[in-house]
């Protein structure tokens, strides 16, 4: 079946055949030095948006991406192929104490290449918190509106009107029965075939990732892409960056090959994500890049816990757009932050992802896998960073210089996770579940809400017992007006080093409390438009 997939036009591959500038760094046999106006590290939501805006303003741009260049013809909807190729650490990245598994993209397109297309504007309540509690300027709802509109137009974000798959419709139905508010998710797709394989790379170029939108836009405007190159560190002289050192990766991509690439630019843009960007600053080891020790701090994850349910009907959650319905009931009713709010959504249910997310082995695991077609799954995303106890994590460097994240789940967030187990079970039973299984080492599978409620009340809320996940890494280079309390200013410019900007999810001073892609698009568009004006004049 895969041979026939090239019947869809792979216009990105064609663009490269017709002369878009691309260097696969794994093919280098000697060191290389390049010069440019702007080098952008990362090609995801931040890097892609910045690349197009800056290149179209007439600047010469080089984009450096650690992951491979793969295009629609390479996406075969196979889990064992996609996770090692397209995700950080083959999809197995974890926090330092192994308590939270982190899914991050690592490909040309970054997270936008493998995410589930869920698009939300930054919630007004989050913007209000930044303004009122953190003194941020320029991020009011009114000031951000044009940038959200830019993102929605450029990435074709629109209401998804196709009926949901049974996994998502169970969320809608359960919430409806309980009288809990729910909504339909907007998605950045056009001509979507409703396949359900957003997470393994869109095989039909329906998903409007940066791979098929702004990266090609930048390349058409003369930018150069370097794939399989890991940005290592900045070199500074007299308080400004003079060059960026990069390591070429091997063709497999899991380790450096030995060749170095040096890039000299007028301006440097970090867009390597909220683990990668702080790591490059930390590796550079220059006091002026991190004068107050804030780099890598306040890193947020929207920690996710999971509830499985056996439905009396086939769910087949592997097919159909994976994430189309949500509930913000527990965000909206908890804005006083006395208890943490959480957003409820659905994941895709391909078998490998599911089999590895469940705890345990042997007969019981096999039994659940056998009933997989009837399995319905909800996830809860905790709104971290809005409470004095919820201070997030810290990016650190491992012995080989690669980054890790030390994230301790606060007692405050644990109570939100416990509440979320119950909220998800209630929705699942209301939607008709026969059995519900909170995904926790010490939990079984239960036939009534009464029974599961008792169990959830007693479950130990501890890492490596409750299974936790994250697909949203935010913070670590927070923006703000006060240079002693933030890393970049409200234009994304570094407070101390004048020719450095950060344009990605690491600038957020709290979590977003919604899937962050559109927030990164909009923030970057605002920053990059400003930077382009400054550089062109």
């Amino acid at each position, binding site marked *: *079946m895969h041979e026939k997939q090239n019947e869809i036009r792979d216009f990105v591959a064609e663009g490269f055949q017709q002369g878009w500038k691309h260097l696969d760094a794994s093919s280098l046999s000697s060191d290389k030095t390049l010069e440019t106006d702007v080098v952008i590290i990362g090609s995801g939501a931040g890097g892609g948006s910045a690349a197009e805006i800056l290149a179209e303003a007439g600047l010469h741009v080089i984009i450096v991406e650690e992951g491979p260049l793969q295009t629609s013809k390479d996406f075969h909807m*196979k*889990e*064992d192929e996609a996770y090692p190729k397209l995700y950080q650490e083959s999809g*197995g990245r974890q926090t330092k104490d192994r308590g939270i598994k982190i899914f991050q993209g690592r490909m040309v397109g970054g997270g936008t290449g493998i995410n589930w297309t869920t698009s939300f504007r930054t919630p007004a309540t989050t913007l209000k918190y930044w303004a009122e509690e953190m003194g941020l300027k320029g991020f009011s709802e009114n000031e951000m509106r044009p940038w959200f509109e830019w993102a929605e137009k450029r990435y074709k974000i629109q209401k998804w009107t196709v009926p949901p798959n049974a996994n998502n419709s169970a969320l809608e139905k359960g919430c409806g029965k309980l009288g809990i508010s729910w909504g339909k998710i907007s998605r950045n797709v056009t001509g979507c075939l409703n396949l359900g394989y957003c997470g393994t790379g869109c095989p039909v170029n329906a998903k409007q990732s940066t791979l098929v939108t702004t990266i090609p836009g930048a390349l058409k405007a003369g930018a150069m892409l370097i794939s399989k190159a890991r940005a290592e560190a900045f070199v500074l002289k007299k308080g400004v960056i003079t060059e960026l050192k990069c390591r070429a990766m091997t063709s497999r991509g899991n380790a450096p090959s030995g060749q170095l690439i040096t890039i000299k630019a007028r301006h440097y843009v970090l867009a390597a994500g909220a683990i990668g960007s702080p790591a490059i600053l930390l590796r550079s080891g220059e006091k002026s890049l991190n004068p107050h020790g804030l780099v890598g701090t306040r890193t947020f994850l929207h920690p996710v816990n999971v509830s499985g349910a056996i439905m009396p009907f086939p769910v087949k959650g592997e097919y159909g757009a994976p994430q189309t319905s949500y509930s913000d009931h527990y965000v909206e009713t908890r804005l006083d932050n006395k208890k943490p709010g959480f957003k409820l959504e659905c994941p895709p249910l391909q078998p490998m992802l599911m089999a*590895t997310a469940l705890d345990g082995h*042997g007969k019981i695991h096999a039994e659940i896998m*056998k009933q997989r077609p009837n399995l319905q799954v909800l996830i809860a995303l905790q709104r971290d960073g809005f409470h004095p106890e919820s201070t997030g994590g810290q990016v650190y460097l491992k012995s080989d210089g690669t980054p890790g994240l030390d994230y301790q789940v606060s007692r405050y967030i644990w109570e939100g996770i416990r509440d979320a187990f119950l909220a998800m079970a209630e929705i699942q039973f209301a939607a008709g579940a026969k059995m519900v299984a909170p995904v926790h080492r010490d939990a079984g599978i239960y036939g009534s809400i009464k029974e599961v409620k008792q169990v959830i009340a007693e479950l130990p809320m501890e890492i490596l017992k409750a299974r936790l996940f994250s697909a949203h890494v935010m913070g670590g280079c927070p923006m703000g007006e006060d240079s002693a309390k933030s890393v970049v200013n409200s234009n994304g410019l570094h407070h101390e080093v004048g020719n450095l900007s950060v344009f990605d999810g690491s600038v957020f001073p709290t979590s977003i409390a919604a899937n962050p892609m559109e927030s990164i698009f909009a923030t970057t568009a605002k920053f990059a438009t400003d930077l382009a004006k400054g550089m062109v004049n």
Partner: protein
Amino acid sequence: MLTRRKLFKQSAVSAITMLALESCYSSPEIPPAPDGLGHNFEFLTPADRGILSKLTPVILAEGLPTITEQKALAIREIIVGWDIAVSGLPPLTQAEIRKLFSVLDSNFILSLTPRLLTGVPDAWDNTKEIDEFLNNWRFSDPQSLVTGNELRVGYMGMVELTMASWYANPRSWDFCGYAGPPVLW
């Protein structure tokens, strides 16, 4: 600050590391490696493959085919899948998995100490004992003063890599009711 707890933890970790170091003495009880289907193994040693061939049926239980030849083929493919997956991981993660296998391989030590610490079975031919070993690691306290989170983390690593290798394999899809990726054209 070196707390009492940390001291305990560190001595336990070094005990495990010691075990790992000593495991270069190969044990006669390590099961033979199954046929590698022509795959050129980059990470897994014959001893690792022997152990995996015994762990896999216990981890996957009824998830594996029941017909003997099909089951044996599935196990061989799972082990090949393991090798491919681990070979693509970052070097530091590979080193951790190497350490895990060193502990699993270390059952030649007759002293009680390692068994108390890690509970690795004496022999790899007893399904019940392997299941108990897995459950000991599964339900070990991640905050344990003696072993820290290592056993629980080791359990999750073994199980997840095995689950991933099997449930990504089209041969498992009938069992879990998956029709595979949609045919596009």
